[in-house]
C-alpha cells in the first residue's frame, strides 16, 4: 500500500475532502519520514514543524466545519531557503545570511499562506542559488535519495530531495539556469520554470534578476499545474511581473497532443550525453509519434553560444545584486578599522568559494575595458538566441531535449572544476536567456538513476506545455521510487 508521504498532493486533497484522511495524519506521516531519513539526506536548513502542525490543525478544523481551507492546506511543502519567510530564518545557503530573519513574506509565500500553506521547512540549496549540486551550501550538501553517494542536483537540491524522500509532498524552487529542472531530473520529479514574469520575484533573494523565476517541484504534472495556479499572477511589488489573464492550468491537462509539432534542437543532443540519457530521450521521441505528434530534428544554431553568454550575464547581474551584502543593514558583519575594511572582511568571511568566483567573474566582465567584449557581446548573443527560439516556435508547438546530459553525478566529482559543473546546465540555460517556460519530467532510468526529459514552450503558453507533459507522463509510465540500499527507499 502507498503511504501518505508518498502520495501526490491532488490525491491527498481529494482524500481530505472526502474525510478519508486528516491533515494531521498526512503531516504525521511526513514527520515520521523526516525523523527517519533527514539525518542522511539533509534536505532542510531549517525545519518548521511547529508551524506545519498549526496549519494542519487549522485545515482539519476548517474541514470539520464544512469550510474550504484552501488547496495548499494540509499538503506538507518544502520552501527553498531563497524565499523570504516572515519570522523564519532565510539563509540562502550562506553564512552571510545565517542569522537573517525576514520581516516580510515573499509574494509567493503570502499567496500560499492564504491558501493554507503547511510548510515543513526551508530547503537546502547552493549558496545564493549558484551551483548545480547543492554542494555549495554553507550548511553542508544534500544527498540524492536515489543514491546517497550522489548529488540531488542544484541549486534547488534540498527542495527536490525533500519531495523524492517523502519529507514533503511538493516544493518551491527557483530557476536561474536550470535550478528547478535539473534537480527535478536528478531526483525523478516534475519541475517547471515558468515564463519570466509569470510568477512574482518579490521576496525572492536576487541572483540574476533578468533570469530568476520561482516554480514548482512536484511528483506529477497535475500537482505541478495546481501549484503553478497558486503562485502565478501579477504582483504590483515586482515591476517585471506581467499583467495577463491566467488560464486554469489543471483543466486542459488531458487534451492530448495529436497533431502537435515537436522540434528537437540538434544543438541540445550533442554535448556529452550519456548513452542512457540518449536512449531515454529517443524513446520519448517514439512515444511522441505514437501519440500522434509530428517530431522533427531542427537547428537553433546560437544555442552553441548560450552557456558562454550565460556565464557572463548571470555573474554580471549577480556581482551587482550581491553588492548589498555589506554588513550594514542585515546579515553578517566582520568589524574593521574603517568602512572599506569592514566590507572586505565581511564579504570574505560571509561568501563561499563559488559565490566569490561569480562575483569576481561578473565584476571583471563589467569592468572598464572588458564591458563591450564580454557583457555587451553576451547581451547581443542573447538577442540571437531569442531570435532562434522565435523562429523555432513559428514551426513547432514545443521543443524537447534532455534536461541534463547525465544522470546525478557523485558528490565531490565536480566541486574543484567549475567549468565541468557549469556544463551540466548546458540544456537548461538557453531557456532562461529566452525567458520561455520549460518543464522536466522523469522519462526513465540509467543505472538506477532518474533521467529527465525537458519540454520547452512558447512564452506564456504553460497550458500547452503542461498538456504535453501530462500526455508524455502517461505514455512513459514512470513509476520507480528511490531504492533501499543505495538510497532511502
Amino acid at each position: 500500500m502507498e503511504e501518505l508521504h508518498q502520495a501526490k498532493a491532488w490525491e491527498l486533497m481529494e482524500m481530505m475532502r472526502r474525510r478519508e484522511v486528516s491533515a494531521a495524519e498526512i503531516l504525521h506521516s511526513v514527520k515520521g519520514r523526516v525523523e527517519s531519513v533527514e539525518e542522511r539526506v539533509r534536505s532542510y536548513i531549517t525545519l518548521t514543524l511547529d508551524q506545519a502542525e498549526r496549519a494542519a490543525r487549522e485545515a482539519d478544523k476548517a474541514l470539520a466545519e464544512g469550510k474550504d481551507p484552501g488547496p495548499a492546506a494540509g499538503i506538507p511543502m518544502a520552501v527553498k531557503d531563497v524565499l523570504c519567510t516572515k519570522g523564519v530564518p532565510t539563509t540562502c545557503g550562506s553564512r552571510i545570511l545565517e542569522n537573517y530573519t525576514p520581516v516580510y513574506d515573499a509574494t509567493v509565500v503570502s499567496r500560499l499562506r492564504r491558501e493554507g500553506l503547511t510548510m515543513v521547512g526551508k530547503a537546502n540549496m547552493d549558496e545564493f542559488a549558484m551551483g548545480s549540486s547543492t554542494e555549495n551550501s554553507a550548511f553542508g550538501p544534500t544527498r540524492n535519495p536515489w543514491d546517497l553517494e550522489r548529488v540531488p542536483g542544484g541549486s534547488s537540491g534540498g527542495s527536490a530531495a525533500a519531495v523524492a524522500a517523502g519529507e514533503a509532498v511538493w516544493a518551491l524552487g527557483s530557476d536561474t539556469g536550470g535550478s528547478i529542472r535539473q534537480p527535478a531530473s536528478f531526483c525523478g520529479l516534475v519541475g517547471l520554470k515558468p515564463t519570466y514574469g509569470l510568477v512574482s520575484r518579490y521576496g525572492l533573494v536576487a541572483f540574476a534578476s533578468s533570469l530568476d523565476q520561482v516554480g514548482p517541484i512536484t511528483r506529477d504534472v497535475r500537482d505541478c499545474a495546481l501549484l503553478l495556479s497558486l503562485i502565478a499572477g501579477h504582483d504590483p511589488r515586482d515591476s517585471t511581473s506581467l499583467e495577463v489573464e491566467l488560464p486554469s492550468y489543471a483543466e486542459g491537462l488531458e487534451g492530448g497532443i495529436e497533431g502537435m509539432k515537436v522540434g528537437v534542437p540538434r544543438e541540445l543532443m550533442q554535448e556529452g550525453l550519456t548513452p542512457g540519457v540518449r536512449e531515454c530521450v529517443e524513446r520519448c521521441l517514439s512515444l511522441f509519434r505514437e501519440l500522434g505528434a509530428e517530431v522533427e530534428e531542427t537547428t537553433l544554431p546560437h544555442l552553441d553560444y548560450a552557456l558562454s553568454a550565460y556565464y557572463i550575464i548571470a555573474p554580471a547581474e549577480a556581482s551587482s545584486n550581491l553588492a548589498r551584502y555589506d554588513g550594514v543593514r542585515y546579515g553578517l558583519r566582520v568589524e574593521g578599522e574603517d568602512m572599506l575594511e569592514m566590507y572586505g572582511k565581511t564579504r570574505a568571511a560571509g561568501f563561499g568559494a563559488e559565490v566569490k568566483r561569480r562575483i569576481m567573474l561578473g565584476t571583471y566582465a563589467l569592468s572598464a575595458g572588458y564591458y563591450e567584449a564580454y557583457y555587451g557581446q553576451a547581451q547581443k548573443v542573447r538577442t540571437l538566441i531569442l531570435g532562434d527560439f522565435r523562429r523555432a516556435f513559428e514551426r513547432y508547438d514545443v521543443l524537447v531535449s534532455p534536461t541534463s546530459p547525465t544522470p546525478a553525478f557523485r558528490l565531490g566529482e565536480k566541486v574543484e572544476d567549475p567549468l565541468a559543473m557549469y556544463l551540466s546546465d548546458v540544456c537548461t540555460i538557453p531557456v532562461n536567456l529566452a525567458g520561455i517556460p520549460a518543464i522536466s519530467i522523469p522519462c526513465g532510468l540509467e543505472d538506477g538513476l532518474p533521467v529527465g526529459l525537458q519540454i520547452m514552450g512558447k512564452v506564456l503558453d504553460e497550458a500547452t506545455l503542461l498538456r504535453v507533459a501530462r500526455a508524455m507522463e502517461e505514455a512513459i509510465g514512470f513509476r520507480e521510487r528511490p531504492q533501499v540500499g543505495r538510497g532511502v527507499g
Partner: protein
Amino acid sequence: MITEKDVEYVAWLARLELTAEEKERFTRQLGQVLEHAAKIKSLDTGDVEPTSHVVPLRNVMRDDVVEPGLTQEEALSNAPRREGGYFAVPRII
C-alpha cells in the same frame, strides 16, 4: 589571459579580501571560464541590438498612496549594530 594582478584589482572593485591561496586558485579558474566564454567573441554581432531583459520593459508607475510599511523597529531588527534608531557603521574617512 587573466593575471593575478587582474584578480587583485577585480577583488578590490568587488570589496572582497582574498587570501594568497584564493588569488592563485581564482586566477586559474577564472582563466578557464573566460577562455570558454571567449567563444562568443567569434560571432559577428555588428547589427544586433543587445537584450538586457526579455520582458518589454517600461517604467511602471502607480499612484502615490500612503500605505503601512515596515516600522522602524522592523527595519532595524536585522542590523548587526544599531544606535538610537540608526544603522551604526565604522568611520568612513
